[in-house]
């Protein structure tokens, strides 16, 4: 298929997106390996949790002077996690890097198709739908694992008769991003149908 004229001018942008996607894959792989190396031994695993309303003094003032601060999230090191908590920590660590890798690969496939001049094709529609589904599915899966991680680690750290409180902080950005991409995927599906309908029209 011949590349449309309107698209040839913006092919530089597509090359930039491919480079960004490759960098994303490398960074996500690095993060994945680093996090697996921390979590898999189940010894001194650093885990971020959000404790309930902790007020503390931290040396942030001039000459290390202590200033009062509300601690929103802290990183604790935990060992010998029970299976459910361990699965939660492992899952929460793995989900987003895997999501970014899959999305970046799908993005590269989409960009290569665009460079060939194939825009509204069934394969591209599938790719865009998959990107939205992977981001939304990843966000949902991460929420489940993060809940296991958060509650499990708090349970491990606190005494049974004096449980620690705390509420999980949910990052809504992937949800909004996934929903925006789902709308984009819907537009792509309609575009593909319109192109199919107008093929051979004189």
């Amino acid at each position, binding site marked *: 298929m011949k590349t449309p004229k309107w698209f040839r001018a913006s092919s530089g942008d597509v090359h930039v997106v491919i480079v960004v996607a490759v960098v994303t894959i490398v960074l996500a792989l690095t993060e994945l390996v680093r996090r697996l190396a921390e979590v898999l031994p189940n010894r001194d695993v650093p885990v971020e949790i959000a404790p309930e309303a902790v007020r503390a003094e931290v040396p942030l003032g001039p000459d290390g002077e202590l200033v009062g601060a509300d601690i929103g999230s802290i990183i604790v090191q935990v060992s010998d996690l029970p299976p459910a908590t361990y699965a939660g920590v492992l899952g929460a660590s793995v989900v987003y890097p895997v999501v970014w890798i899959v999305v970046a690969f799908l993005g590269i496939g989409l960009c290569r198709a665009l460079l060939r001049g194939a825009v509204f094709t069934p394969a591209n529609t599938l790719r865009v739908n998959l990107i939205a589904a992977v981001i939304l599915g990843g966000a949902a899966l991460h929420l489940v694992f993060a809940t296991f991680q958060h509650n499990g680690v708090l349970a491990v750290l606190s005494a049974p008769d004096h449980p620690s409180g705390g509420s999980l902080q949910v990052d809504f950005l992937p949800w909004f991003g996934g929903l925006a991409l789902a709308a984009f995927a819907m537009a792509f599906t309609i575009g593909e149908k319109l192109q199919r309908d*107008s*093929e*051979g*029209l*004189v």
Partner: protein
Amino acid sequence: MPPEDDAGRVHCRLDELLADRGMTLTRLAEIVGVTVVNLSVLKNDRARAIRFSTLTAICDALDCTPGDLLVIR
């Protein structure tokens, strides 16, 4: 929606009409305001749909009816 195969049964008699009138495809394209490529698609039965505006313009230029231009095989 009609079956996809039915589009292939429509034959365009543009070649014969042009020959009868001694007109070239390029000249028709100029009169009608459609590209030669698109008229060639129509002439070679590769078109799957035709706009009413294109059909009207071709019929006006060739002094014929849609039935003269398109037949079902």
